[in-house]
């Protein structure tokens, strides 16, 4: 039993509501990502989970037990910090077994567990090194091993990959994810990188200004964003959003323009870059840039005051300055009201 339940959790710093009445649950042995822009309260939320920060109000349950007022060490969680929090004067072995020593685990058992954890993360040959003599990725592994050796079933991670280069980050993403599944860990993982969130999570909790904007699977967030904020936060390039007020509805696909004309409460429409294609009629845009990625090209264009991104396969014959018409299947349109909230369409 290691599921997590968070109820109406709030944390106020002075007059800043860092976390504002947040509730969600993390099923046992699943991977939940807290995603959001910088300063939205992800770290604060995570720190309240493990007890390094106290809650202003609300409750935290771990394994069905109310741990809100329990001290950090007794909550049954381990944590991987952004800067790894390795003890610089201790070698890898001592770093891994720091907690075991604190808990007075007998020496033989300690050595055995350390060895096992080091093997899991592929550090066996480096046990005598000091952290200063390790690469970023290796330090990251030490932090992971320390968390594994604690044998807690809940593991919290605060931007653990943000200090690594892009290639290593992709590798470690896979590794952390497979580790979580192999060991059956319940993981809560903080990041502001939506690629990490999409590729690792069972559940994404998207936060903005201390509040939950949307919670769901990566696919739900991508295909059914609850608001313009979700729509634009998830996906690269972000979803194209057009204000109804600033657009000529006759340029939209025919069926869409009928819907828009008949429903005055629609405020914005959105469409993903991959659903747009160049057509003979449709929305007139002026290209101002293209980004070639090999398999595809992302075209950047202006429609009136809005910027539109769309994807084309390979390398299309499109140059900056070109005037094109674009269109998209009507059912791929996301419709939002004047308050930028998704409208029930179906």
């Amino acid at each position, binding site marked *: 039993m290691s599921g997590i339940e968070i109820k109406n959790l709030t944390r106020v710093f002075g007059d800043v509501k860092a976390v504002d009445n947040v509730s969600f649950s993390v099923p046992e042995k699943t991977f939940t990502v807290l995603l959001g822009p910088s300063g939205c309260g992800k770290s604060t939320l995570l720190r309240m989970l493990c007890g390094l920060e106290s809650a202003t109000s609300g409750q935290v349950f771990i394994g069905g037990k109310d741990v809100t007022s329990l001290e950090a060490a*007794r909550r049954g*969680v381990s*944590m991987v*910090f952004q800067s790894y*929090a390795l*003890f610089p*004067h201790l070698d890898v072995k001592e770093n891994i077994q720091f*907690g075991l020593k*604190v*808990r007075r685990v007998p020496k033989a058992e300690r050595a055995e567990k350390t060895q096992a954890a080091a093997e899991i993360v592929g550090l066996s040959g480096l046990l005598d090194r000091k952290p200063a003599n390790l690469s970023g990725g290796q330090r990251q592994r030490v932090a992971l091993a320390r968390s594994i050796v604690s044998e807690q079933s809940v593991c919290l991670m605060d931007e653990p990959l943000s200090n690594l280069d892009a290639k290593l980050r992709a590798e470690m993403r896979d590794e952390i994810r497979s580790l979580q599944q192999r060991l059956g860990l319940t993981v809560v993982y903080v990041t502001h990188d939506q690629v990490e969130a999409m590729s690792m999570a069972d559940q994404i909790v998207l936060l903005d200004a201390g509040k939950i904007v949307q919670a769901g699977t990566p696919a739900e967030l991508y295909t059914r964003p609850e608001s313009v904020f979700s729509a634009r936060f998830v996906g690269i390039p972000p979803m194209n959003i057009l204000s109804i007020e600033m657009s000529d509805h006759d340029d939209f696909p025919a069926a869409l323009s009928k819907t828009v004309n008949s429903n005055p409460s629609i405020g914005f429409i959105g469409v993903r870059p991959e659903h747009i294609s160049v057509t003979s009629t449709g929305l007139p845009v002026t290209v101002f840039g293209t980004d070639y990625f090999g398999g595809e090209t992302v075209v950047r264009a202006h429609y009136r005051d809005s910027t539109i991104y769309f994807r084309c396969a390979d390398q299309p014959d499109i140059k900056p300055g070109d005037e094109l018409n674009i269109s998209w299947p009507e059912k791929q349109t996301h419709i939002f009201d004047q308050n930028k909230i998704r409208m029930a369409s179906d």
Partner: protein
Amino acid sequence: MLMETHKRHLLGWALFTPAAILLIAFTHYPTIATFINSLFSNSSIIRPSRFIGVEGYQDLFDDPVFWKVFSNNIWLALGTIPTSIGLAIIMALIVNKAVPGRSFLRIAYFTPTMLPMIAVANIWLFFYAPEIGMLDQVLGLFGIDSHNWLGNPSTVLPAIIVMTIWKEAGFFMIFYLAGLQTISPELAEAAELEGSSRWNFFWRVQYPLLLPTTLFVLINAFLNSFKLVDHLFVLTKGGPDNASNLILYYIYETAFSFLDISYASALTVFLLLLLAVTALAQFYFVDKRVHYR
């Protein structure tokens, strides 16, 4: 081309000269002169100075006052250094935490360090004065007889040790505070999550990470225990019966009260050697010593 090089040389010398003059006039020349003086006897009207070689240094080893003064210095070092370092660490740990009134505490701990030694001595003169002094007044409340703390050979050195600790601990605290602040707060959080107690965290993490600081402080404290004598002028003049006399003050007495320049020079060279060896040890250790980052 040649002109260019000439000009650059000229500029180099111009920049170097002022510093060189100061260094030579006030450091190198006096040092060498002292060394030379120590090899010659004092001149008087009837007898001119003559070469005596290492005789002055032999006198030093046969001089019971020198040994008394030297052992006083060692006792002073042993009495002040461990205690003031211990206090400094405790104070630094206290003011490093987010306790209420933290900035006030920091200033309070640091104040004795900012005072000149003479002022410190005057304050403590008031504490130690027999009968009317604060110490005797307080002890009097408990029915303890008055003491002449600074007049009694058995209490005078301990009294000076206590005062020196009071003066130095705040200074060392600053180094420990700086040392503590280089330790990432995440380490404390990681340890806290593992269930490490304050005490465990101090021994396993903070103390070892402060080792370079301790080494630095240790050597400075040792040097200071030989260099600080200002308070003797106010408090005891080295008395009674040399019970509180220290090498530097003894040198001053020998040179300017007993007018024995030759012997004072030998003493000075001895002290210089001692300090030089310590300073070299400092360079060696502090540089070689584990640097974790």
